[in-house]
């Protein structure tokens, strides 16, 4: 008891109020410091942090100098490409008789395919199919053509609804860009439904081939015009398939590209669900 009672000096300097902690009018102290004390400490921290910022910028600058412009220093964290689909949704759910319902998919595909317009692609190279298009020597790399029209009925040219209205939607499958990637073998996309009865699908370009001529990729700075090869998958749903959720898995097969990673479910494969209602 006595221990706590005794706060030496308390009560002797006149009334102290709790507000003195914030501002003490007698000493002119604001939160325990007077103006010059605040000034000095703030100045110190200003100078100190200024110096630290400078030091940090210096080290960052040195680090950025060591980087190359076109190619990242390491790409061992992306040894194998991921597979993604367009429209960008893993749940494609729509009512085929309601255009407003699937409109978003259509618009998405339209925008996505803008870069593949034949008019745009005409300026790109016509490359030799089945061969890597090596151009290590050139400073400005050229891109191979991938015309939208090769997607045929999934190109949106002949059928602006990409088959959505007829209940046979087109899904575009693309492989992630990875600088310097040269897949071995003949990669192609294979989509299957996770159910007992097989689902019939139609691929464009034919055989779902991802042509080697689109590899390697040289990075966006030097390979500006580059477009990824696409594979359009038209799900030929029948009446029986409507109102049923179908899980579809597409894999890259026929090459050394990984498609069975335990943890990364998007490495060389993609799984999505389709539910079409009437």
């Amino acid at each position: 008891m006595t221990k706590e009672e005794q706060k030496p000096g308390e009560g002797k300097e006149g009334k102290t109020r709790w507000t003195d902690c914030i501002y003490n009018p007698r000493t002119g102290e604001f939160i325990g410091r007077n103006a010059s004390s605040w000034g000095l400490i703030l100045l110190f921290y200003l100078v100190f942090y200024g110096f630290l910022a400078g030091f940090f910028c210096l080290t960052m600058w040195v680090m950025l100098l060591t980087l190359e412009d076109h190619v990242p220093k390491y790409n061992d964290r992306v040894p194998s490409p991921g597979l993604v689909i367009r429209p960008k949704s893993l749940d494609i759910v729509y009512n085929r008789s309601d255009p407003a319902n699937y409109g978003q998919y259509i618009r998405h595909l339209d925008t996505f395919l803008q870069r593949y317009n034949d008019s745009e692609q005409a300026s790109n190279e016509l490359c030799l199919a089945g061969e890597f298009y090596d151009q290590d020597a050139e400073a400005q790399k050229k891109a191979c053509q991938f015309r939208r029209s090769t997607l045929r009925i999934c190109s949106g040219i002949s059928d602006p609804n990409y088959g959505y209205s007829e209940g046979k939607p087109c899904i575009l499958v693309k492989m992630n860009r990875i600088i310097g990637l040269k897949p071995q073998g003949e990669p192609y996309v294979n989509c299957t439904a996770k159910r007992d009865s097989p689902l019939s699908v139609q691929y464009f370009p034919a055989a779902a081939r991802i042509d080697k001529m689109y590899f390697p990729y040289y990075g966006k700075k030097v390979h500006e015009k580059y477009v990824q090869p696409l594979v359009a998958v038209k799900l030929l749903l029948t009446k029986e398939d409507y109102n049923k959720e179908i899980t579809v898995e597409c894999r890259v097969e026929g090459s050394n590209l990984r498609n069975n990673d335990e943890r990364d479910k998007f490495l060389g494969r993609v799984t999505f669900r389709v539910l079409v209602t009437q």
Partner: protein
Amino acid sequence: MGYGRSDSYRVATTQENKDVKEKPKAKGADLEELKKEVPLTEHKMSIEEVCQKHNTDIVQGLTNAKAAEFLIRDGPNALTPPPTTPEWVKFCRQLFGGFSVLLWIGAILCFLAYAIQAATEDEPAGDNLYLGIVLSAVVIITGCFSYFQEAKSSKIMESFKNMVPQQALVIREGEKLQINAEEVVAGDLVEVKGGDRIPADLRVVSAHGCKVDNSSLTGESEPQNRSPECTNDNPLETRNIAFFSTNCVEGTARGIVISTGDRTTMGRIATLASGLDTGKTPIAKEIEHFIHIITGVAVFLGISFFILSIVLGYSWLEAVIFLIGIIVANVPEGLLATVTVCLTLTAKRMAKKNCLVKNLEAVETLGSTSTICSDKTGTLTQNRMTVAHMWFDNQIHEADTTEDQSGASFDKSSETWVALARVAALCNRASFKANQESLPILKRDVAGDASESALLKCIELSCGGVKAMREKNKKVAEIPFNSTNKYQLSVHETEDENDNRYLLVMKGAPERILDRSTTIMVQGKEQPMDEELKEAFQNAYLELGGLGERVLGFCHALLPEDQFPKGFAFDCDDVNFPTENLCFLGLMSMIDPPRAAVPDAVGKCRSAGIKVIMVTGDHPITAKAIAKGVGIISEGNETVEDIAARLNIPVSQVNPRDAKACVIHGSDLKDLSQDQMDDLLKNHTEIVFARTSPQQKLIIVEGCQRLGAIVAVTGDGVNDSPALKKADIGVAMGISGSDVSKQAADMILLDDNFASIVTGVEEGRLIFDNLKKSIAYTLTSNIPEITPFLFFIIVNIPLPLGTITILCIDLGTDMVPAISLAYEIAESDIMKRQPRNPARDKLVNERLISIAYGQIGMIQALGGFFAYFVIMAENGFLPSRLVGIRLYWDDRSNNDLEDSYGQQWTYEQRKIVEFTCHTAFFVSIVVVQWADVIVCKTRRNSVFQQGMRNKILIFGLFEETALAAFLSYCPGMDVALRMYPLKPSWWFCAFPYSFLIFVYDEIRKLILRRHPGGWVEKETYY
């Protein structure tokens, strides 16, 4: 709070009424009852009545059956240890104390977040569940750790307690039995002899020269007689009661046990003392203060960022997850365990130096101590009467009083000395106990009273063969000492076969001996006692008395053969031989000399700014002499009385302010008001309290505490236990201390030596300094742990450091280096500075926070961020791309996130990069913490001055590095902790920052040393 003025111990403790009343009623009632007069009536009863009351027989004792029955009824004859907190309460305190509450909140939030996720998502991420489990595990494990540490230190105490099992001699069914004292029951007939400890409260039924030492109960140091008759109504004063746990000094006695265990007088006092409330230890207050600061920062940051993230449009769930992250980052999870370990290490170190610490936190208390109230006997002195001076041949000779006989000796050739020594040896009932020939003389046990033992040892040391001398000079008659005669005499045959005279030897109070002498021996020749010699005697007597020594005079006479032929029957009751006209030989004076190490220790305390106050029950003169001898009253300092004597003026005319030293008598202390007391304590630097009663000790302690001092009290008796308890740190004596005092104390000096306290002070101060360093080190890494979250929320970059990695730092890599700082040696002579002011010198102050958080921590954070940006950039995400990417980055469905080079990343791929960044950030913190631990080694000196001799610290550096490497490279860590192998070059990212920390702090400390008291010191010296 009123002060008890009664001489009775029981009243003194009633000042704690208020405290007591606040406690639950049942306990309060108990204590109230305890405070009443001792309800002893047995001393007024006749022996038969006592026997009847306790169903016992005065000859046969109890029957075994009855004894067993009583034992079951009353329980064992032992003091119940003070009510200990149940183990589960202690455990819970560890589980929910300190930072644990914050962490529990974090864990609960984790489970909550997981529950919400589980309810709303089909495939909830296990992260939150996992983190919640980890957090709970962390709290439980650190709680268990602290709990076991505490349990360990209390176990030391238990083992100590059981070291000396007590025995008692009881008579049951007419047979003498040696039994364990715990089995003694009320009604037992007990026999005690000199040297025994009284096993229970006894009603004495018969006694032979029995004296008991009640000092531990009443503070009276003189042994007191015990006999069967009732001499006083007050049971404490009457002669026919012997009290539990007091000592029988000499003689034998037989008594009936009237109460056992807690029902004994001593038991009641002990129970009462254990009811005293003690405040928190200084270090506990400091840690609490520090926890408040950290919790405050954590809660403030947590809440403000919670609100901010809601405002920024994050979902509730995300905001909660941020909150968890901020809490985890803010709380130094491992710190309390580190503090416990540091304190334990110091406690162990102190135990090696004979300071046994009962309460871990008391380790530091000694270091903060500003006043020591020291008992005299046994602590400052050897607790052994020793002959210090002799006066013979009209000259004072000094005897060697050192413990190891290293002091100077005196001329032993004089014949007077031979005669004096003979008298001292013969007129002496003390004798060495058997079978100790191998021991040095001073260590041998002696049966007999203190001054006779002193004489015996002195003669044995200087002449040797006391036993042989006594055999040669057979004792034929003896008159023992009594208080009316004030002398003791014996008649012996002489050594010389041909000399048939008898030798009469006498010793006693000098003035009485002088009165009986007509001649004096000088240089071996008998001379008539003239006035000149008488004056010389008076001067010598006064001088020795002034030294606080107990003076005895010696004389002898050879009885004429014609009057006292061989075979003369000396009658001691009706004295038939001359006891006057003897030949005076000299004086011998005795004192309980100070321990050799004490003056030095007192000097050290003084230079360490600690005021040493002597509090003793002894006489003022003796107390003052010892105080001067050990330096408690330093040379040249005078008391009011000294000044008066020097100036030859009355005491009342001396200005008390002129006297720095003072000796206060207990009876004067009684009349002092509280203000006078404060005044006294404030204005005198050197104080001796003499003739103090137990409750006055308490008043002195409270007076010191009122003045803001942190008080250490040393004591050994039961009567000291309230003061020991009240003190900030009570120090009991391991050898001479009573169990009750040991129970009340926080620390035990195993060798009873005051000098050990100084080591304790030194260790306490060192650990306080080192704890500061340890905390500064640990807190620094909080900034690189918090900032990633803040930037994650504000600038929307992928998270640079995860919660799991934060835990790896706090509970993994930071632990050993933080603990190693406890082994750091002192930077300067810590015993040369003033004790810390608990109001001002905090363990954690704003300067420490400023350095740790504002400066070093910021550099560390930059080091971590640099590593993060390096890895991100080298993998393709330049800093410009990172800002604002968070929403896409953490989107599971986004599997083609583009980097700065046009590559596209799946969620898992970029998460691996993110976790690699966490690992790199973690490793960077380890790297910058290398520099931090080296920097934290010193607070003022340069590392180059301090050196790198701390082997544990060097081990710590390697250990944390190895652990970091293990966490990064061990296969399976990617799954277990989501930590990934780093490329060797990434280890070096933080090196410039590590170097910067070292250089920055060395410069800071250089300026600090160059400009003492300057701005840098005011703002950054923690």
